[in-house]
């Protein structure tokens, strides 16, 4: 083998091992039964106490209800955002609407601003309007956050569709409503799924709104619960915290592996 290839393969192996170490330690030490943990990290799996740790994390940090909450928030917000954004894209691209550029910027600007700019006014007005610490409040803000980027993607996708189909349908007397649901939505389905996956992960992984807009345990999303568990690091012990981290990552990992095709295409639409 020529030197260049040895060097290259060597580098790849070293990088891969470096990258794998934290993941490996995460899994191995999440497996260690919490009682057996000796104070220093384990490098090889021994007794299997993973499910014990997971159930402890599930109870102690109330990951259980948080899990359900996040599933609800992520699913509902992502679906709502996709539908709303697809509708908006349909309106600004296909329908003859005036001031398209203005509407585009009004909606799209939401994704350019950092979340920090929204958080206190939202906190104050949520506190005043009894949306604070409610599930509907979180669903609303997650949807609002997701819409601008979803709109951007759906609009770019809609621009690539042939206009003739819609024009033909209009000639035949179909209403805009029908054109949207029966022609536009089926045509854009793959992009809609990609956006859904993307936004589901984004909502699932959110921490800031979770810790700001909720306090009670049966409302809080899962990352806020994990942050709490981490705050109890010395009490519950590393295995339980790591098992908790592993547990909350399962849905995104599964989605990532099973929907890889959509993941990659959702990244491609970035371009």
């Amino acid at each position, binding site marked *: 083998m020529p030197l260049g290839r040895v060097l290259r393969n060597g580098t*790849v192996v070293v990088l891969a*091992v470096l990258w794998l170490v934290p993941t490996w330690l995460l899994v191995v030490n999440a497996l260690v039964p919490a009682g057996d943990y000796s104070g220093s990290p384990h490098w090889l799996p021994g007794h299997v106490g993973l499910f014990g740790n997971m159930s402890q994390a599930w109870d102690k940090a109330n990951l259980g209800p948080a899990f359900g909450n996040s599933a609800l928030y992520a699913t509902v917000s992502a679906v709502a955002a996709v539908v709303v954004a697809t509708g908006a894209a349909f309106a600004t691209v296909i329908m003859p609407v005036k001031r398209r*550029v203005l509407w585009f910027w009004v*909606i799209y600007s939401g994704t350019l601003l950092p979340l920090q*700019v*929204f958080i206190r006014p939202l906190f104050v007005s949520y506190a005043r309007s009894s949306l604070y610490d409610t599930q509907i409040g979180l669903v609303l803000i997650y949807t609002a956050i997701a819409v601008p980027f979803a709109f951007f993607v759906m609009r770019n996708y809609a*621009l690539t569709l042939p206009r003739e189909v819609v024009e033909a349908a209009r000639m035949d007397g179909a209403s805009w409503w029908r054109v949207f649901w029966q022609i536009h939505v089926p045509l854009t389905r793959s992009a809609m799924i990609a956006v859904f996956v993307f936004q589901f992960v984004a909502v699932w992984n959110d921490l800031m709104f979770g810790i700001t807009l909720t306090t009670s345990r049966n409302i809080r999303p899962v990352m806020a619960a994990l942050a709490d568990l981490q705050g109890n690091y010395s009490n519950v012990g590393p295995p339980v915290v790591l098992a908790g*981290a592993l547990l909350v990552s399962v849905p995104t*990992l599964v989605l990532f592996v099973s929907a890889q095709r959509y993941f990659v295409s959702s990244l491609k639409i970035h371009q």
Partner: protein
Amino acid sequence: MAPAVLLVVAFLLAPFVWTIYRSFFSDSRTSPFSWFDNYSRFASDPALTRSVQNTLMWVVGTVLLPFVLGLAIACMTNATRWSRAARLCVVLPYALSGAAVAVVWNFMLTTDGAVNQVLTNLHLGSLAHGWLLTWPGNTIVMILANAWQATGVAVILFLVGLQSIPPETLEAGALDGAGSWQQFRHIVLPQLRPVSIIVIGMSLVNGLKSFDLIWVLTQGGPGRATETLAVSMYNETFLELRPGVGAAIAVVLTVIVLAASWLYLRRQLDVKGE
């Protein structure tokens, strides 16, 4: 379209305007109009000066590391089959959330964590220390932790870019006698330009917004040594109860983010939709 506009205006744009407005009022109980007093704290408050420094470090780190590592790994694993497994190792952390990454790295970096354990076993015990306790080391290790997660997406994007390069161009280069480095430099790299701009733009904005990892790992501490602007804003607003200062930080952050976004928006946007 109406629901989209309503949602965005009510939940995002209105708070944005309110934050700008709020940033001009002081934090005493009656909150009088105070011109740019809140902004002047950037010069007078050492915690904020440190925060700006940290943010700069984060931006440099989050742009350089995922870009260089992502490009290198994508190029090195594009050719051979077995390296798919190696690539998976790098891409996998991308599926973790910021909070989960923080948990993993806390485990690596605490005083009796994995890194110190390895150092002690290698008889380098003198190098072992509390990684998260002293500046600027703590910010640097968090940037590395972030790179551990963020490189995956850069790898994916660069692979997509590499695969869209027509092989004929490489063959033509090889026929003309270009070595592999020359091929990379003069054929591959120019064709990766659009992808590179996206990777840089994404990392830049993500670096500026980084919050989750820092919040869960250190909460901006010890003291306020590891705060970035995003974390400072949260701290000032909700812990120090100085919403005016918090609003000013948010506005400054917004201006920087918008300026940074412009880099890749310029070529990405085709606003007219024709």
